[in-house]
């Protein structure tokens, strides 16, 4: 059963959305997605809901938010860390791909602004005996990656800074983005060190907001819109738990394995040529570089050149994160769904920062302590190749 995205809606993302309650945020995204698809809530048959509860000060928020997602519909709660948004999309996709439903919505809501700081919350995810007291959080594992990569491939702080310059430039064109500022390489390099070698402008914000994506079966998709975004392939991968078990921080081999599987399913032989635009989950500059290499866009050790040489800028060969990416907007449990929705908009030709003629888009999220990846290829064509 072929499945397509027929609607995407998101809220503006801010440090705190004090103007809306949890279900009101969900409602804002749901309404935007319904309006985009030209549908009404009663048309939706089932809902997959995603959130990372610990940030929001409310446990199992899908219970409260079900009031906004459509009462009495089958609702399924997904939570897988940073990949939550993408796995929620895939769960909704499975509803339709299985043939059980024709029209299903994925909804993700997150209010990271409710917690004092995201990193102590993330620290509660790691082992309480061996790792928790080290203060380990997402930013620390990213700094391990940056240190290892810079040492192995002679990357410079300036190489990483160019990723930040590019993402911030893109975010200026995205009305929903959280951080909007024009930054130079010097600005990035002169911003304060948060976790060496990563500096403030190389680290994501923590955002409040919500997103919703509507999936339709093949027959319905064409009736709903002329330009649906077809889900060509998808995959997830789960690595071992302990961070110390990673073979190397200078490469992301689990993502490379997942990418290989994804491209085989999608019929993609050369990602750099066959994919027009990528929305990658890169909350820290180093991660975009590692992701580009793991996914085969760049040779090992060469990803550091891409932003500096303009390859990943809007007018480059591989426009990456035209939305401004996670570096400028990170409602953690909803972030993956934003990547997925932005990738869908690109192949629909409706993105705010549109890549000209984009037909194939890649969407990605990672989660845990570099443990999980979720990937999807979306296209304006039902099938590639």
């Amino acid at each position, binding site marked *: *059963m072929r499945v397509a995205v027929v609607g995407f809606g998101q809220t503006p993302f801010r440090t705190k959305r004090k103007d809306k*309650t*949890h279900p009101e945020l969900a409602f804002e995204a749901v309404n935007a997605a319904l309006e985009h698809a030209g549908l009404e809530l009663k048309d939706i048959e089932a809902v997959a809901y995603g959130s*990372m*509860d*610990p940030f929001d*000060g*409310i*446990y*199992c*928020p899908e*219970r*409260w938010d*079900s*009031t906004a997602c459509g*009462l*009495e*519909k*089958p*609702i*399924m*709660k*997904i*939570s*897988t*860390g940073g990949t939550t948004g993408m*796995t929620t999309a*895939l*769960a909704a996709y*499975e*509803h339709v*791909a*299985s*043939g*059980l439903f024709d029209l299903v919505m994925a909804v993700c809501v997150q209010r990271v602004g409710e917690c004092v700081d995201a990193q102590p*919350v*993330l620290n*509660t*995810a*790691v082992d*309480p005996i061996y790792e928790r007291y080290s203060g380990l959080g997402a930013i620390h594992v990213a700094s391990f990656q940056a240190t290892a990569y810079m040492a192995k491939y002679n990357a410079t702080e300036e190489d990483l800074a160019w990723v930040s310059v590019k993402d911030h430039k893109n975010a200026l064109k995205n009305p929903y983005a959280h951080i909007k500022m024009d930054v130079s390489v010097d600005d990035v390099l002169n911003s304060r060190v948060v976790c060496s070698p990563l500096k403030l402008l190389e680290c994501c914000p923590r955002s409040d907001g919500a997103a919703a994506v509507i999936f339709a079966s093949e027959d319905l998709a064409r009736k709903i819109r002329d330009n649906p975004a077809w889900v060509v392939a998808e*995959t*997830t*991968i*789960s*690595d*071992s*738990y302990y961070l110390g078990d990673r073979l190397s921080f200078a490469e992301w081999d*689990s993502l490379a*394995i997942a990418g290989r599987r994804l491209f085989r399913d999608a019929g993609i032989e050369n990602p750099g040529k066959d994919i027009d635009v990528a929305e990658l989950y890169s909350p820290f500059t180093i991660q975009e570089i590692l992701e580009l290499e793991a996914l085969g866009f760049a040779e090992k050790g060469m990803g550091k050149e891409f932003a500096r040489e303009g390859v990943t800028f809007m007018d480059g060969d591989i426009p990456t994160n035209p939305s401004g990416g996670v570096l400028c907007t990170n409602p953690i449990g909803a972030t993956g769904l934003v990547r997925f929705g932005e990738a869908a908009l690109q192949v629909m030709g409706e993105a705010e920062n549109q890549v000209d003629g984009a037909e194939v888009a890649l969407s990605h999220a990672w*989660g*845990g*302590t570099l*443990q*999980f990846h979720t990937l999807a290829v979306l296209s304006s064509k039902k099938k590639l190749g």
Partner: protein
Amino acid sequence: MRIGIVGIGFTEFGIHKEPFYNLAFTAAKRALDDAGIERREVDSFILGGYDNLGVGRTISNMYTAPAAGAYLRHEIRVSDDALFALPLAYMRLRHRSDVTMLLAFGHSSETPIELVELQSLDPFFHRPLNLTLPAFFAMQSYAYRSRYDVDDEKLAEVVVRMREKGSKSSLAFLRDKVKVEDVLNSEIVSYPLRKLEMAEWCDGCVALILAEETVAKRIADEIVWLDGVGWSVENYYFDREFHRLPFVTKSAEMAFKMAKKERRDVEALEICDLTVDYHCMILEALGFAEEGGGWDYNGDVNSSGGALCTNAYGSTGVFLLANLAMRIRKGEIDCGLAQSMSGYAQKSCVAILEG
């Protein structure tokens, strides 16, 4: 296309001192052994269980995914009672999986569950009321007993029957028999609910190996088919009719429709009776008893002892389902229905199994 259960693995249910991922590993290993397959033959892993507040760790699948054997495999966690993960496993198998493991984990001894559940209430209207889960359950019990004038002694007899069944199950957490007087004399937790009329939290994991029909037939001779699943949600706000559970009815309707079965086809039930009143209300909502008459139901229900004997927050629903599947596999019954629910009696999931 049919989807079948070809392997089942339980841990012991009780209060465990070892980490929940060790239990998860035990259940997963036992399920693989039961199916006679290796980890590498499982292509998808669907996990079911709560997150940080429920098991003491944020992103709990960081631990349970490796324990299940999901190393470098497809894996997604449904954050709810694990029976709600069954539809995702079912859909994954219908779509593109050959063999999927469903791992259910619960480790409520890590956290004060009543306090945890209180955090699920909205911070404006409900949470300030300090309406704990037992207090809410008691409101429904009060409404049910008042509406139908149900005698406390009749309800106590239901508890006695369930504990009798639990005493015969080697898998049950509570295996001591009780008398009607014991139930009626047990302390009031929240009026009118008494301690022995409520489920008691414990820890434990269950894993199922599910396979697409043609693959299932290569793996096992005795396959338990998953004929139908249904799930539904009730209004979050409490402007509900407290004496009935319409969302349970709705989830059952969906499952029956998918299974193309009638209630008369179902020979045995496993239901999530978190209180004795829910035992009655669920039977009524499922259509197996008249409204107000659930206490008098004399059919085959909760041979496992039900949630009143075993309630590992997060894995209870799959515990009930797996018990039912074991009976079908042994040939005791041909067709059965398992039900679970979560939250402040807000969500229900129903599965129909057949031999």
